[in-house]
């Protein structure tokens, strides 16, 4: 009985202290108004202190790329802080290289504004906007991949580079009480300025993919933020290879459509890796493109085709299949999109056939 009383007493005191700390932080740590100086004073903001740098900038309609919505799990929201950020937090350390730490790079979601702060961000961040959009169409592409088509309502037009991504904000659903934000590559062409399409693969237990696959319906309104990301086509090459798996097809489709619509004279090889035939999608689309455009080559590869697949195409890891077609990549660009494991495997193989590392592009989220 005494032990139980002790446990309850200690727990009660600890709870009380925790509540006091929360209250103290709320009422005593009033940081007042703070100044944010951006890019050597080119832009100056006045914000209420106490929020994260990411949130404060977002409220001022400056959207820093982020794929996790401020949970310090994607490492994308990096900004260079000249002064005023306070010490580096343990939550930031896994995402920062030694050089980045020396340069003052921080995760903006982890930097709390407590005083005036001076930061440097790329100019293109100023063109990222928040959009209200309506779900127009949801299409099953495979057993675990859906394509979502959105009409942009406010603002109703967008300019993006093929390959870039958008963030989508979920609403509370089921037992989920908080909104979440995740990033998905745009699969549609930049020429359609009033709509965008996203391709989303279900992740078991994923907060956002569960929302999109099971709860999002045609006619729903959503909030999108973008365009973001530096995974887009560079023009200084005459030949490209694209390698993708799963929902990684999305930005590649956008890039290929962009090249063809602009009638650019580029040689293109698209290697798409899947396990069985049920993991393939957009086969007819890319097969037709290959017929219509002699410089576009579509090479789907299955690593484990089933007998009932009756598969006549390439068999094996997509990296090995690529090696059968490409012997020298020294003048080519490579664009990779897929799981981290696939991307790492591709990079290893590509550098082995003379692809220059700086000409291998992929999204790091």
């Amino acid at each position: 009985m005494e032990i139980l009383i002790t446990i309850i007493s200690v727990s009660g005191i600890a709870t009380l202290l925790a509540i006091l700390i929360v209250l103290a932080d709320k009422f005593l740590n009033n940081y007042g108004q703070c100044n944010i100086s951006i890019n050597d004073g080119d832009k100056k903001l006045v914000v209420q202190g106490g929020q994260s740098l990411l949130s404060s900038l977002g409220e001022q309609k400056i959207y820093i790329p982020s794929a996790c919505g401020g949970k310090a799990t994607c490492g994308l929201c990096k900004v260079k802080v000249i002064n005023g950020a306070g010490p580096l937090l343990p939550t930031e350390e896994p995402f920062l290289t030694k050089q980045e730490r020396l340069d003052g790079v921080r995760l903006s979601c982890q930097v709390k504004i407590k005083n005036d702060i001076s930061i440097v961000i790329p100019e293109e961040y100023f063109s990222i906007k928040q959009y209200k959009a309506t779900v127009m169409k949801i299409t099953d592409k495979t057993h675990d991949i859906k394509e979502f088509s959105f009409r942009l309502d406010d603002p109703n037009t967008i300019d993006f580079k093929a390959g870039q991504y958008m963030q989508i904000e979920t609403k509370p659903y089921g037992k989920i009480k908080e909104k979440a934000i995740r990033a998905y590559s745009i699969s549609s062409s930049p020429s359609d300025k009033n709509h965008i399409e996203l391709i989303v693969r279900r992740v078991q237990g994923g907060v956002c993919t569960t929302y999109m696959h099971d709860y999002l319906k045609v006619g729903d309104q959503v909030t999108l933020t973008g365009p973001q990301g530096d995974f887009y086509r560079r023009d200084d090459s005459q030949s490209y290879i694209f390698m993708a798996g799963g929902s990684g097809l999305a930005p590649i489709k956008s890039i290929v459509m962009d090249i063809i619509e602009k009638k650019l004279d580029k040689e293109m090889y698209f290697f798409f890796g899947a396990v069985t035939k049920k993991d393939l999608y957009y086969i007819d689309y890319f097969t037709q493109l290959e017929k219509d455009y002699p410089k576009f080559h579509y090479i789907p590869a299955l690593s484990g085709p089933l007998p009932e697949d009756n598969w006549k195409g390439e068999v094996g890891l997509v990296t090995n299949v690529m090696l059968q077609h490409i012997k020298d990549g020294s003048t080519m660009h490579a664009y990779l999109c897929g799981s981290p494991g696939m991307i790492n495997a591709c990079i290893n193989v590509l550098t082995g056939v003379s692809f220059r590392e700086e000409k291998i592009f992929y999204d790091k989220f």
Partner: protein
Amino acid sequence: MRQNPVLQQIQNNMAPGAYTAHGFLGDDQRNLIDILKNDEQIVAKLGVTHEQIASKMRELTLMGIKTPDVPVIVQGKYEVLVDDHRGFIPCPFADNVSEIKRNTRVRNLDSNDSVYWSDLNIHMIEQHGFYEGIGSSFRNDPTTLFQVLGMSINNNLKK
């Protein structure tokens, strides 16, 4: 058993929607402290440690990483399939650890039984002795892991 506020906060982190859509506890209504203690007893009875179980899991994951999305036969005993997704998932124990979203499925070729875990599962077992609550889709019962992974009793622990 009543648990301290720190464990209670961790249990809150394990609720659906906090870190993952379905959370870490499944249908388990027990306090986290009871889940941890119960699995601790099971592992002790098996004569192994959390670290040994996690080590075996990590070994198989590392073998499967070499061929993502493609099953590989390991040591003639296991079929291992590893897939991964973009992004990281933070540990609900708030220890500043985030693991990449990578999953491993292992099938014991003799028994045909399978187990399925994430990299975060390996970390949580190794560092926190946490196998998730009963009913959680990523719950790995220590006894099932012990059997499917073909582990042997550590006699030093049995003494």
